């Protein structure tokens, strides 16, 4: 277990170094001078040159990179050129909403995927219709689904809110930054419930694509498990088909679905940026979306790092879950 944690931490360091290197390379290739963006379009050339020197953008590329990495080790993500706050402060402010959306999206994707996989493998009634519905929604791009949801469910039917994560302007802001939890912590159940209500539509949009992928993998391995020798043994004992599926086949089938979940997390992060922008969800997706046009490279790099850390953590959790599910799997 210790070896597993150490290995994962090392791989996280490597991934983060590579991610920052890529962000720096992009900055180099873009030929945008962040100092120019920082000072505004009307700044004089002299002022830009001075600011470029102060910010260190005139130093060699490698030197900039090492300066950034050494700052990183001290927890310094530099200052956002747009908000003029330290990037770390910005991320602390924006991350909770993203965690809220991503975690509930992932949870929803797993639930929908499990239902989809189970009912189509076990050929329950209505499986075909459910599958059709899920597949047709999942085949649409995220932005189209978002627009559809906002226009129909929010605009026309007024069932669900379409923007932001709360309707309260005086919602509590601590301690987690996640509206639903903070509402509960402060005993303001109306706020928490309103938060859940706001969450449904964006989380659903984020979850649909991964849900279909997870469900298809689950269905495939469930079908194989149900034809397996141990399922035949279970049937020979005279167990009910429902028991065979839920007690024997399912646990032997979730391993592949868990792997797929890990893979989908990366795609989901990309989806979160788009969805947050469309739903005006106050997370790091919205933050980075506003930073990109301003060439706010410190902010972009910071968000990239956070997503990288999230990816590694979630995949480590997937590996642990796989070992929990299958006693033959050892953590390495």
């Amino acid at each position, binding site marked *: 277990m210790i070896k597993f944690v150490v290995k994962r931490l090392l791989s996280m360091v490597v991934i983060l170094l590579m991610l920052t290197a890529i962000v720096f390379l992009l900055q180099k290739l873009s030929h945008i001078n962040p100092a120019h963006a920082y000072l505004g379009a009307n700044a004089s050339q002299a002022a830009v040159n001075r600011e470029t020197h102060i910010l260190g953008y005139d130093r060699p590329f490698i030197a900039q990179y090492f300066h950034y990495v050494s700052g990183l080790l001290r927890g310094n993500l530099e200052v956002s050129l747009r908000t003029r706050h330290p990037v770390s402060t910005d991320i602390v402010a924006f991350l909770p909403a993203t965690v809220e959306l991503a975690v509930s999206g992932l949870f929803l994707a797993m639930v929908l995927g499990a239902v989809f996989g189970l009912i189509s493998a076990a050929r329950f009634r209505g499986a075909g219709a459910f599958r059709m519905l899920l597949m047709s929604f999942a085949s649409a791009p995220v932005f189209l689904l978002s627009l559809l949801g906002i226009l129909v469910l929010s605009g026309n039917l007024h069932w669900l809110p379409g923007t932001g994560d709360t309707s309260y302007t005086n919602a509590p802001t601590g301690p987690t930054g996640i509206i639903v939890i903070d509402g509960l912590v402060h005993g303001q159940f109306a706020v928490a419930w309103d938060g859940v209500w706001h969450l449904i539509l964006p989380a659903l949009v984020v979850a649909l694509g991964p849900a279909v992928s997870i469900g298809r993998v689950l269905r495939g391995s469930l079908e194989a498990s149900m034809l397996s020798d141990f399922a035949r043994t279970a049937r020979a004992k005279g167990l009910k088909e429902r028991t065979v599926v839920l007690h024997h086949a399912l646990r032997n089938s979730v391993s592949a679905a868990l792997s797929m979940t890990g893979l989908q997390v990366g795609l989901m992060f990309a989806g979160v940026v788009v969805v947050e922008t469309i739903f005006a969800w106050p997370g790091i997706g919205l933050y980075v979306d506003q930073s990109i046009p301003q060439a706010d490279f410190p902010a972009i790099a910071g968000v990239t790092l956070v997503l990288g850390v999230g990816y590694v953590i979630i995949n480590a959790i997937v590996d642990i879950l796989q070992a929990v599910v299958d*006693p033959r799997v050892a953590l*390495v």
Partner: protein
Amino acid sequence: MDDAPRAAEASAPAARGTERLFDAASPGASKSPLVVVDDLHVSFERGGQQVNALRGVSFELQPGEILGLVGESGSGKSVLALTLLGLLPERPRPVITGSALVSGTDMVTANREQARLVRKQHLGAVFQDPMTSLNPTMRIGKQVIEAAGSTQEAVRLLDAVGLPDPASRLRSYPHELSGGLRQRVMIAMAVADSPALVIADEPTTALDVTVQAQILELLGTLRDELGTSFILVTHDLGVAAQVADRIAVLYGGRLAEVGPSADLFGAPLHPYATGLLRSRLVLRTDRSRPIVTLPGEPPDPRNHPPGCPFSPRCEHHSGECDVALPPLETVTATGEIAPSPAGSAMHQVACVRLGRFSTGHAAAIDERAEPWGPVASASRGRNPAVLVHGVHKRFTIGTGLRKKHLLALRGVDLSLNEGEAIALVGESGCGKSTLLRSIAGLQMVDEGEIEFGKGGRPQMVFQDAGASLTPWLTVGEQIGERLRSEGLRRQPRDARVLEALTLVGLPAEVAKARPAQLSGGQRQRVALARATVVPPEVLLCDEPTSALDVSLAATVLNLIGRLRRELGVAILFVTHDLAAARMVGDRIAVMYLGRIVEIGDADELCSAPIHPYTKALLDTVPEVGRVHVRLKGEPANPIDPPNGCAFHPRCPSAEPTCATSPVSLDPVEGASGRRVACPIALRLRTPITGDLNTAGVMSARDDSGRR
């Protein structure tokens, strides 16, 4: 248990836990039969073609009876077993006619729920592969409790099937148990709730020979104690004969012969049963000539002949065989067809020409086969082709604190001479395949040396011929690949490929086929053709016949014998079957836990074994109505081999010193080339007298007279 009907069912039939003794002497004298199968037909569509798996099978089974259901692949034996269990796969959808009554319920017409209740209350099942038949992610205890109902009952059952320390084993996962113990767990689940019938589909095929005997003995004991009937499905007539009261031989979806085990194993009447028994190797089989085999291939269930399904392979075949399906008729003790059917204990045969050919004693040595010629390279002197010296090989398992070393080879010396054949015999984990792979150069050894004579790299033939051929290349391309280095043009290369195919007895068309289009026996021939198209100095064979049907295995052994003599290649043949080893090898080396424990001339070793382990292996050769269990337990774990002689924990004649003092492979006085790693056996050994070479090939007629 959350199954609601469980409470109602538990009070149902069986006097659970009571060990009522059953009068096995007169099975079902006054009772109605437990199973009545009448004119059962099963067919389904696969790949657009109609597969006729069962074509009119009828038989009865009495309470407390053990029926051995014997057949090769394509005979329909597994389909019959699954039909009785109501567990035929739903896709492709089977078409079933006739009836199969189990405890009064017709499993053909029963709906899902009815069939499930029959399985729950009256049936148990044991399947072939205990590695895959238990749920890998569920603890043993929970799996047994599902069938047994309570923890207490689960412990009692596991104890009854001989699982050591059952209470603490409940928390084990299947992968933590050995194959034999897993099969015991399967049997515990099968006999839970005292079913009337247990269907065991090849329950011992995946197990080591010494463990196989233990499992067969257990089945017999359970029948005696619980009165449970068994249907023992197997490809091996010998396995069935050891415990079954009656044997039914299936061929091409029909019963060819049904009768008491002693009759069928001793003097079968149907030409197929006779042939099956004849290609079954025993330690008395004549080694000086090829094994008498059944010609042709097992039947293709997509394309049965109109008449007797065996007629295309039958030596007594005539025109009348192909007119209609031969009915199963009762025969008298003298081998004549009886006028009226009389009870289930009768001997029944489906052959219209019965009585018009001599059936003779099946085990008789068939004099028609020409004796083997001399080995081509015998005149080339006795230079070693392979010299193995002090070879050690270990594998690392696990990581960190749980890191362990599996000691696969612990100091092996072996010298294979030019043109010689040595058979390596041993159970799983003994290192025989590791030794072969090391010689083939497929892995490096940790210690010791492997030297070759003047020849080049050895060639290897594997157990699973299907998996060892590339699926998308034609047979011709795969054989021709080995000729690429010779820089031949297309035409001479094709000619060489054709020559190689002819040598292994395959038609020229096979060159254009892909492996999937061939049968198992044909694929193994292709593998041999690929290995010998450029004749190697040494041919390494890793259990090449163990995945094949009995009749095909014999033909492949004959083929290896012929290739050896015609091409003069030296052969190292790995097998778990001493009888096959004796047919192939000039010498036999018996391995146990990474070491050779006995080596010597094949006939000498089989007729006068010295090492207790060799004796135990020889004892696994089947006899009617008796199971020898000479060895308790299973081969020890190569991860932590016992000190001293590794065999001592299982050895019936072990002494205290065996656990401490190391043993070496010492020469045997008065027997040249014989070496044994057991000082006690060597000390107690009575001096060998008489001609050993003839002792092993005693005429079977003399032998059978004594039976």
